[in-house]
């Protein structure tokens, strides 16, 4: 039966708000009141803030559902609202030119949404909205019908593995912790998402915080913890606010706190804000940070499951891992393990960015090929340029060359080619990207974020970075590539924590697949034309009309020439800013 009401969903994740979501919502309120719609349909007209649905590039996204028919608008601003209300809601004639196009649907069609299934559809600030889509039913099932052991068995059977990067089987982790005898145990949700360009965890918490709380509570029951912590970046104010609200609502409904749902099980969650250190995503550094210490990793073993927070057995799971749990319990382990490959089950959320047409948040079944992600979901390369490589796994990951795009995306396959699934960063690089520069970019990040505790990471990454820097500046030495490989491998082997153990990956994988680019740099050329110091700008006399535009644009005064006669660039004075290249209408400025 068709719903006769009107429902308006406005994307109010961080991306949506940044694009003007709050103003759009205000405009809808005002226009609906003005048009008298609220009065005529009464309670049947509802407006909802919803979380991220992935395609932030097209925000503000607005769903208008009238009489059961859903239309989605893209790039909506407040001043466009009156026309939507008038034409769509009153005249029943959707504003076709503002509706999302085929690419929006393509973006979603190949995705399989588990963790994100309710994100973008429900109001994250309303616990009832989550309950309406069967929220907290998994918790009820677990607490009233399942023993902790049985719960662990379901998670083990489902094949769920840690989504934070390492891919450790979640059920096994829970089982080990359950087996450790202790009066006090803890469960921690790692929401210290620090990879540049990654926003999977933020979107999940912003879009469906209750799923994380439910997953965490189930985990706590399974291992026998009564206190949980969500360690979340302070740079995620909206996520923190929604999480706090969700915790409050859950406590009020007796879904958290003493004797949850009338059972003997008690559990509560505290929030600990991170202070912006990438290394605090490493579990032992995260524990140190909660304890009030400087966020520096501790040596393992002992592992946190044996001796974690304040020396007590502790399970640390990533946001996405925990958000999967309620869906697995509700739909069964077989349903979950029907997605994915033999060893990598279920789905994974990726932040698809870089030179791809549709960038945004995607959830795909494990085992999908890179090609499907880039071309079917991502819509191909921007400006239809040639794909060069895909960088996966953030600063700890590696680069996969274009020739390998048929590779399956799962833990094992990516590891085999020298990269990782990681927390889910996926950066598409095209022919204009210099691989040496890409490696340098990531190393700059890891070097700056190294905690400084161990020598290989603190000094080793610095030396790696210095070598890369001199290569991109044309001062590389003949032995530098071998030195990078040697030092990179040593830093990987000898570093204390995951940060140092993976920091050389971008360097090593780019050397592996793009050695020729490194060699070209040593010979004084940057094939992609990115490294400034290796570039020369020159004027192609046969195309130059002598208009003087480049001369006026040049901030260094490096260009000379008479009007209507070919100009010249003095390479000694040229600062290689590219202003002349940009400004020339006749393509008379060349660079190499």
């Amino acid at each position, binding site marked *: 039966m068709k719903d006769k009401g009107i429902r308006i969903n406005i994307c109010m994740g961080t991306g949506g708000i940044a694009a003007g979501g709050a103003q759009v919502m205000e405009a809808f309120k005002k226009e609906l009141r003005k048009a008298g719609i609220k009065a005529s349909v009464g309670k049947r007209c509802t407006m909802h803030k919803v979380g991220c649905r992935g395609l932030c590039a097209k925000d503000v996204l607005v769903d208008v559902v009238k009489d059961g028919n859903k239309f989605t608008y893209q790039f909506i601003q407040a001043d466009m609202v009156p026309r939507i209300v008038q034409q769509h809601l009153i005249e029943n004639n959707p504003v076709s030119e503002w509706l999302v196009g085929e690419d929006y649907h393509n973006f979603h069609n190949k995705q399989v949404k588990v963790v994100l299934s309710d994100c973008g559809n429900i109001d994250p600030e309303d616990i009832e909205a989550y309950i309406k889509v069967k929220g907290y039913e998994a918790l009820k099932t677990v607490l009233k019908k399942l023993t902790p052991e049985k719960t662990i068995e379901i998670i083990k059977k489902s094949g769920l593995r840690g989504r934070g990067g390492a891919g450790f089987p979640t059920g096994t982790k829970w089982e080990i912790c359950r087996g450790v005898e202790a009066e006090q145990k803890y469960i921690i949700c790692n929401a210290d998402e620090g990879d540049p360009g990654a926003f999977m965890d933020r979107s999940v918490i912003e879009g469906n915080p209750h799923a994380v709380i439910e997953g965490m509570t189930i985990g706590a029951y399974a291992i026998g913890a009564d206190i949980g912590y969500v360690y979340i970046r302070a740079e995620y104010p909206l996520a923190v606010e929604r999480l706090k609200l969700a915790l409050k609502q859950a406590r009020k409904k007796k879904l958290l706190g003493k004797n949850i749902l009338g059972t003997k099980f008690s559990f509560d969650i505290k929030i600990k804000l991170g202070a912006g250190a990438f290394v605090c995503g490493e579990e032992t550094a995260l524990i140190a940070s909660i304890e009030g210490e400087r966020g520096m990793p501790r040596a393992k073993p002992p592992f946190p499951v044996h001796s974690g927070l304040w020396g007590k057995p502790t399970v640390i799971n990533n946001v996405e891992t925990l958000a999967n749990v309620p869906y697995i319990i509700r739909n069964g382990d077989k349903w979950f393990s029907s997605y994915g490959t033999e060893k990598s089950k279920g789905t994974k959320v990726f932040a698809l960015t870089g030179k791809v047409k549709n960038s945004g948040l995607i959830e795909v079944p494990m085992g999908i090929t890179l090609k499907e992600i880039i071309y079917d979901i991502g819509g191909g390369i921007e400006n239809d340029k040639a794909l060069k490589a895909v960088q996966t796994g953030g600063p700890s990951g590696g680069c996969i060359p274009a020739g390998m795009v048929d590779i399956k995306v799962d833990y094992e396959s990516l590891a085999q080619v020298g990269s990782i699934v990681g927390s889910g960063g996926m950066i598409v690089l095209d022919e204009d990207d210099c691989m040496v520069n890409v490696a340098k970019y990531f190393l700059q990040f890891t070097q700056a*974020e190294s*905690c400084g*505790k161990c020598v290989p990471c*603190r*000094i080793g990454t610095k*030396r790696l970075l210095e070598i890369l820097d001199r290569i991109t500046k044309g001062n590389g030495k003949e032995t530098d590539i071998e*030195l990078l490989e040697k030092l990179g491998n*040593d830093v990987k*082997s000898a570093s204390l924590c995951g940060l140092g153990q993976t920091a050389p990956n971008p360097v090593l994988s780019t050397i592996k697949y793009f050695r020729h680019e490194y060699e070209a740099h040593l010979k004084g050329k940057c094939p992609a034309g990115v490294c400034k110091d290796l570039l020369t700008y020159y004027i192609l006399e046969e195309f130059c009309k002598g208009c003087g535009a480049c001369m006026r644009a040049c901030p260094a005064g490096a260009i000379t020439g008479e009007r209507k006669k070919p100009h010249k660039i003095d390479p000694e004075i040229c600062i290689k800013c590219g202003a002349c290249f940009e400004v020339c209408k006749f393509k008379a400025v060349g660079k190499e």
Partner: protein
Amino acid sequence: MVKLTIDGKTITVPKGTTVLDAARKLDIPIPTLCHHPKLTPFGGCRMCIVEIKGIPRPVTSCTTPVTEGMEVITSSPRLEDLRKTILELILSDHPNDCMVCERAGDCTLQELAYFYGIKENRFQGERRRYEKRDGNPFIERDMEKCILCGRCVKVCSEVQGVGAIDFAYRGFNAKICPPYEHDLDCEFCGQCVAVCPTGALTGKMWALKGRQKEIKEVDTVCAYCGTGCNITLHVRRNEVVRVTSKENTWNEGWLCVKGRFGYKFINSPDRLKTPLIKKRGKFKEVSWEEALDYTAKKLNAIKKKYGPDSIGGLSSARCTTEENYLFQKFIRAVIGTNNVDHCARL
């Protein structure tokens, strides 16, 4: 008890023992920089890495507890190669001015560089530059020589309970400093100086007084208080140039500011070496016999004229327990009053 093999040798050690301690029991040498037997393990320098069967990556022996049946290899081409890389990395960010360094000859980093024969360094690049600036008279901090082993931080918080310093900043810029990089303002016990494996922390008054050559070590007991810490005087040409304490003493090698840095009086021209008696408004040097006779005569006279309760005795914390016992006995039994007290009674 846990049984394991290290380099093919079997040993049984109590549960909770680290691989490093087990190896040392077998007299197997493993190089370390950040490890200190009296401080909690740190695992930062990575020199003590070992290979353990079943674990793909090398692990630090100082942090890894032994497990039953564990098979450990402490030296292999791969391990020695990694250790060499680590040392070269440290030395690539070090002044390497051993020629004029206070700690030359007593520096763990120098020793390891020597044993690994590091003459040339594959890694060269930026070095940290810091200005020396502390105004205190005790501790010299040359942070360019700091290898961030964290021993000073640990001794300050774990042993001394002060926490005057900690790690700050990240990455290559990480350093150890007091809060907000203020000047060091602590109790100057110098425990940090004692545990520093390089020349980053030294005693200010040690400067240019002599290193290891021509030093005679004299073991004695600190006279500052009744605690009686064992100290070792470093004497060069009949002058005390440094005070240290050995780890196997009952005070475990720990000292306070007075014992460690308060030795200037020994060679001070103002030092009193004989008793003085004021005669006609001026102090005059006298023999101990004369001084004791004079004191006894005066005490007797006062006691006779005003009674024993007109006399009181105040003893010193610098005396031993036995001396303090004798003193109160003297006041009570000989003088005949209970007016006796001690400066450390509070």
